């Protein structure tokens, strides 16, 4: 009986839509080398978890996350959602922003622990390989309050999950691509009813020296009198752009006899990236070394105690980040000499406790408490002081960040749900006021499964540690940013099990952010942050997904996203000459869209990805200058995959073609992007149960 109970509880943990983290995902399976898209039937009333009343969420399926070992989460988000990914190039800083807000308004959690850099506030998504993420979802606007505070734009929730419990598993993937790019991935796993152990490692290296025609500068041809006789746009290579990123993820899960579950996730990153030169740089790359290195360890210990009508969970975690930035040049003696030597260390301790309690199937009460204690040391410049001694420009600070929330979710009838969340946060010595969030959803029509959702919340974001303490410029007098966000939307789902499924949603949102923090130069020549802007971001998000069994062995899956996100500066003018009031924020596209199509036939799969951003202003005034402008962005990538299933292993061979139409383009001013490029992947998953 106990064993039966254990199996049932384990089943609930893994599959219960109310309690499992896998909820909301479409199921994909892979059998005998063929792709199967399980096209589920549509039954909205039964599938609306009480925990997600009114929540606007985008969940990524395993096909998107596990499409390629070469993809970072920045790539996945670019092509599978409508949030804006600002990338400074291939394997360089990539930040994401929801609904016209800034990257620091996006909160990111990994297994419950917030991983935003406490010094910068943002997260570099190019440093998160998608193969290390087993579950990812976006919480748009107000919905982020259910998970964390500070997400004025939204939150990205990332999770890794246990290996299967069916013995040994191994997967090895090798990728070889253009620009001397090599990607390797290895996963070793073992699992039984009690233990699941998994080790994942990936190594990505590239010279990243792609060719491009540089239209930002010309090469001069002189005669003997040093008169220019002709000029031409040079064909250059991406200079100083090489990278080497290593990731190791160790996971261990154990299910106790009382079915409590213990987990350990430890993720180590070792990255060494050159910082590519601008298109407008006339120096010789051999004279300079411009490099950023990072070593990060993130570890989370978890305990989950699950019973029929309640759940308690506790987590403890630790993050250590060491970052180094070095800018050196050869002064002519062959020795690289330091011009800038910047080091930062971050140690974060994390602890959280969560509880959920169900009363029947109409009420759910939740409570959570989380603490992040940061210890930060920034050493940005070595100098000689006036007295001849050595000095360091930098700061050393610690900050405690506490967050507590309670919620009551009520579903009086199957067709209606109401949820109230109250959250409060402490950063250092400053409390936020109570952060309220109210969510409502209701089934408007069972025919077509039309569901309406609405929510409203207040939110705050505290200044980052650099905002407050960076030398020079940190401003300890900064106020926290605050905002109100309103969401309302409709969704539908129609389909027939095994034949087709069509889902869609439309969401309107409106948010006002006050005291937006912006770094501006000072009269002393350095930058300093100030609470400067009031921003009104509003718009519409559309999502659609279609899964169709076209014919026997043919499957088509189409995902589409579209966003219209005006993000308007409504602050006071900086001076009488200020033309930015009433204008779209710079670098924020007003329109964005993605389409992701996947056609499967037996053991073949063809994938087409398309991404669009409208023209982005590079000036806050919305003026279009000749020499600083980012035109409309279109990108098309395709891939073709063939799976083989010999007796001893599952194999797959995949060819990816990026930038299919060989576009010459810049993602950010002066940052050239690669033209058409290729990568070939071979994946091997041995079958250990041969002969059984």
């Amino acid at each position: 009986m106990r064993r039966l109970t254990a199996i049932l509880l384990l089943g609930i943990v893994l599959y219960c839509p109310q309690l499992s983290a896998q909820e909301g995902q479409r199921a994909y399976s892979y059998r005998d080398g063929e792709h199967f898209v399980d096209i589920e039937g549509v039954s909205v009333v039964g599938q609306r978890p009480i925990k997600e009343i009114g929540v606007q969420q985008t969940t990524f399926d395993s096909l998107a996350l596990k499409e390629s070992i070469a993809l970072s989460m920045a790539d996945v988000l670019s092509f599978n959602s409508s949030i804006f990914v600002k990338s400074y190039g291939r394997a360089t800083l990539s930040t994401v922003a929801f609904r016209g807000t800034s990257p620091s308004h996006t909160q990111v959690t990994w297994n419950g622990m917030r991983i935003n850099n406490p010094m910068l506030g943002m997260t570099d998504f190019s440093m998160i390989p998608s193969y290390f993420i087993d579950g990812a979802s976006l919480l748009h606007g107000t919905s982020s309050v259910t998970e964390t505070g500070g997400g004025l734009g939204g939150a990205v929730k990332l999770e890794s999950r246990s290996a299967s419990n069916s013995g040994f598993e191994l997967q090895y993937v090798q990728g070889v691509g253009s620009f001397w790019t090599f990607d390797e991935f290895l996963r070793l796993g073992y699992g039984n009813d009690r233990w699941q152990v998994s080790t994942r490692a990936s190594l990505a290296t590239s010279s990243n020296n792609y060719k491009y025609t540089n239209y930002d500068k010309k090469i001069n041809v002189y005669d003997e009198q040093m008169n220019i006789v002709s000029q031409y746009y040079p064909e250059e290579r991406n200079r100083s752009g090489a990278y080497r990123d290593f990731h190791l993820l160790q996971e261990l899960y154990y299910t106790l006899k009382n079915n409590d579950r213990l987990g350990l996730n430890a993720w180590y990153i070792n990255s060494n990236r050159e910082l590519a030169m601008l298109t407008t740089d006339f120096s010789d790359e051999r004279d300079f070394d411009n490099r950023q290195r990072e070593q990060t360890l993130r570890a989370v210990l978890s305990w989950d105690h699950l019973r029929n009508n309640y759940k308690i969970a506790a987590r403890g975690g630790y993050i250590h980040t060491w970052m180094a930035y070095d800018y050196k040049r050869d002064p002519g003696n062959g020795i690289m000499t330091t011009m800038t030597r910047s080091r930062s260390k971050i140690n974060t301790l994390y602890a959280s406790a969560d509880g959920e309690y169900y009363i029947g199937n109409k009420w759910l009460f939740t409570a959570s408490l989380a603490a992040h204690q940061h210890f930060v040391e920034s050493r940005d410049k070595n100098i000689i002081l006036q007295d001849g001694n050595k000095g360091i420009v930098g700061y050393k600070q610690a900050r405690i960040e506490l967050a507590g929330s309670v919620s009551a979710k009520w579903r009086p009838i199957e067709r209606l749900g109401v949820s109230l969340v109250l959250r409060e946060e402490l950063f250092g010595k400053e409390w936020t006021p109570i952060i309220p969030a109210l969510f409502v959803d209701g089934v408007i029509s069972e025919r077509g499964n039309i569901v309406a959702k609405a929510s409203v919340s207040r939110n705050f974001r505290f200044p980052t540690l650099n905002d407050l303490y960076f030398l020079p410029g940190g401003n300890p007098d900064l106020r926290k940013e605050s905002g109100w966000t309103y969401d309302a939307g409709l969704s539908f789902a129609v389909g027939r099990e095994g034949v087709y499924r069509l889902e869609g949603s439309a969401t309107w949102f409106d948010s006002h952010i006050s005291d937006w923090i912006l770094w501006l130069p000072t009269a002393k020549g350095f930058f300093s942050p100030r609470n400067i802007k009031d921003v009104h971001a509003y718009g519409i998000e559309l999502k659609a997904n279609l899964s169709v069994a076209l014919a026997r062995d043919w499957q088509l899956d189409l995902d589409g996203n579209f966003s219209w996100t005006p993000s308007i500066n409504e602050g006071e003018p900086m001076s009488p000459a200020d033309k930015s009031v009433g204008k779209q924020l710079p670098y924020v596209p007003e329109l964005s869209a993605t389409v992701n199509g996947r056609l499967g036939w037996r053991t073949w799969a063809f994938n087409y990805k398309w991404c669009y951003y409208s023209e982005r202003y590079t000036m806050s005034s919305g003026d279009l200058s000749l020499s600083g402008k980012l035109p409309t962005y279109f990108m098309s990538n395709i891939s073709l995959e063939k799976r083989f299933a010999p007796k001893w292993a599952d194999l797959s061979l995949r060819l990816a073609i990026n930038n299919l139409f060989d576009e010459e383009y810049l993602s950010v001013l002066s940052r050239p992007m690669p033209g058409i490029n290729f990568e070939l992947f071979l994946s091997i998953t041995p079958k250990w149960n041969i002969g059984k």
Partner: protein
Amino acid sequence: MRRLHTYIAICVVLLITGCMKWEYGTEEQFEASGEGLFICNEGNFQYGNATLSYYNPTTHHVENEIFYRANAMKLGDVAQSMTIHRGSGWVVVNNSHVVFEIDLDTFREKGRITGFTSPRYMLFISDEKAYVSQIWDNRIFIINPKSYQITGSITCPNMTMEQGSTEQMVLLGDYVYVNCWSYQNRILKIDTRTDEVVGEVEVGIQPTSLVADYKGRLWSITDGGYSGSPYGYEAAKLYCIDPATMTILGEWRFRMGESPSEIQLNGRGDTLYWLNDDVWAMSVDSQTLPVRPKIESRGTIYYGLTIDPRTEDIYIADAIDYQQQGKIYRYSAAGELIDEFYVGIIPGAFCWK
């Protein structure tokens, strides 16, 4: 069904035909003879959107992005300064590590010098010799402008590469004087015959700018550093220096927290101007700092200042939020607004033709 197929086909065509364009210009013809004012718009660091503007004080006409329009290529990243020598303009583009020589009337490039660490200002010693000051390098580079070659360097004593900072230069006779700014507190004296540092004088923390008045005396203004700086933080000061003896002749102290900058002289060299929220002016023979500004602030932080050497009109640059076209205000010597016009992002330096 046919309609559906047509619709799908249109969508597919739209998807695959969307293409981007790396926009670049065509070469435009300019003929800007006569007097004029060049404005270096720094642009945003690391974005390569520096531009050059040209203003005709007589016609009140401004042309923006003239380098890009004349040459169909970008000026680069952070246009720091410009100087004119024998009919050519020399534009120092700091983070592009280049100095462009341009024609003053057509704005077409005539040549370029590369190989710098982080150039800031250029000073001509002769037709075949110029100095270029730098930040993040303890050397001043020696240039042959005719051959566009770096021919040598002057190593500044007691200065590391990491803390290297030489700024504005003044030529008086056989000597060049240069202020050392970032985490520095000195004015150096260089013998142009030997290209060696032969003297120095300590001033306050971080002298930002340097000029020489009609009497041949040097004037510099410090910013005093910043709160929390390990190098120190003090009140900003104005200094008058005897270049022959490298001694301080006069020292005027500002209030703690004030950030004076951009010291300038009028054409006769007898009146100093600087920015300190407002625009201030002071006779070089005065014994005290002025109590009232020459021109009051318009509720913004001014970023650049120049005085028309012929008319003594005052030009002030407002960088606004540093992310849009800055604005130039032109005042008469009496302080009356004559003209105002938009230029490029972060207008910081001026150069009179």
